[in-house]
């Protein structure tokens, strides 16, 4: 029978906290850049202008279909060699996950936008709005509301995918857990606690999103019934 002993984990909990901060920093950066970039990609892909739509489509499909680990290695190892640019692990990870998540967010945005009834476009144009005005004032606010569940899902995926940054020695939660496990010879305890931290943070955040969704539901149509 295995004897659980969390003493070593508790004594070194500072390491895990630092790791959590690292995870949150990289996830936060990816969200902060990935969301606006994703919106731009989605709007470009939906644009009637082919010279905007096609490159946007290519970027989205490329980053959706290649493994994030390959992208990360490419930015961290290949780019410095090819272009003589030195990157910190944080910068390489930030670039990778900003672009990678923007490709996924672009598809979430696009799905939300095309789900809005044609009549909404027509009503906006009938009162004399131009396409960008209609998009900004009428279509997007409704689309964003419908997107919240898919957006939450993608953000959770993003946070878990950032564990890959450990491979380029960025000190995220998983990296720190690994260090701690090797130092204390208590991998079972360390990884159990690590899983619980991920669970607590992600579950807590998704509860917050649900609360926001419920508040938005007050004004008319919504995704929460």
């Amino acid at each position: 029978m295995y004897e659980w002993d969390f003493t070593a984990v508790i004594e070194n909990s500072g390491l895990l906290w630092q790791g959590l901060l690292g995870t949150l920093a990289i996830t936060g950066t990816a969200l902060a850049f990935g969301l606006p970039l994703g919106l731009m990609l989605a709007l470009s892909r939906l644009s009637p202008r082919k010279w905007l739509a096609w490159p946007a489509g290519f970027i989205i499909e490329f980053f959706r279909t290649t493994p994030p680990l390959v992208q990360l290695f490419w930015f961290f190892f290949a780019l410095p060699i090819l272009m003589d640019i030195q990157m910190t692990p944080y910068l390489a990870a930030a670039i990778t996950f900003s672009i990678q998540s923007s490709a996924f967010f672009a598809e979430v945005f696009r799905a939300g936008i095309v789900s809005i009834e044609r009549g909404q476009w027509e009503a906006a144009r009938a009162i004399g709005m131009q396409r960008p005005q209609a998009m900004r004032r009428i279509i997007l606010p409704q689309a964003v509301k419908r997107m919240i569940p898919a957006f939450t899902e993608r953000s959770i995926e993003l946070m878990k995918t950032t564990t890959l940054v450990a491979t380029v020695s960025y000190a995220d939660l998983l990296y720190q857990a690994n260090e701690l496990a090797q130092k204390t010879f208590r991998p079972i305890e360390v990884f159990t606690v690590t899983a619980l931290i991920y669970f607590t943070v992600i579950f807590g955040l998704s509860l917050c999103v649900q609360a926001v969704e419920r508040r938005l539901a007050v004004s008319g149509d919504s995704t929460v019934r």
Partner: protein
Amino acid sequence: MSQEPILTIRGLHKSFGDNHVLRGIDLDVQQGDCIAILGASGSGKSTFLRCLNFMEIPSDGAITHAGKTIGTERPGKPRVYSEDELTKVRQKVGMVFQQFNLFPHKTVLGNITEGLRIVQGKDKASSDARAREELARVGLAEKADEYPSRLSGGQKQRVAIARALALAPELMLFDEPTSALDPELVGEVLNVIRGIADEGRTMLLVTHEIGFAYHVANRVIFMADGIIQEEGPPEQVLKNPQNPLTQAFLARHKQFEF
């Protein structure tokens, strides 16, 4: 004495792929006309109306608003229309849809002020005042702060009418405004439309309400197969139709009038 028409339509065609929906429509609309457009579904009547504010871009022909022909002529090809030009035309042509198409994320007042503020650039105070004026006209002054989801179908359509009227259009288009309503709600919407017609506002109305067309319109158009089959004052077209297609259409509808 006849004055310059406010709307002139010449040789209007519209195709969707191989489907030739409008096959050459000519019509002059005078200031103050209330024109009811009748026809079976598939006759092209809604498409015709939707071409007038360029919700559909005509495949051929010319539309002249207040003396100005819209679009640029190209030899041997359909006219081209710039987005800016169409945006300006649409501001002068109000449209009411069968499905209301209110903005669900905005209050009733917000629905009406949207065009005033964003398109016409008016400030909040004057937009609100203007919107409340129109809401009062359609009898919904007390609903200003509600969201559309809390309104009945008839109320939604009255808000949609107020939204269009707030922009002071020169021409109003109604695309089957009562077809999506429960029967008991049709009357309140028709009353509002009748009130607007009585003010002398120029309007075209696609409808299945033949009785309403008879009492309110000064001209009735019967469409079938993408063209105007018969046109004239309501007494003539509805009581003494000359075209066999009009006669058949009216005979079908009279079965349901008791």
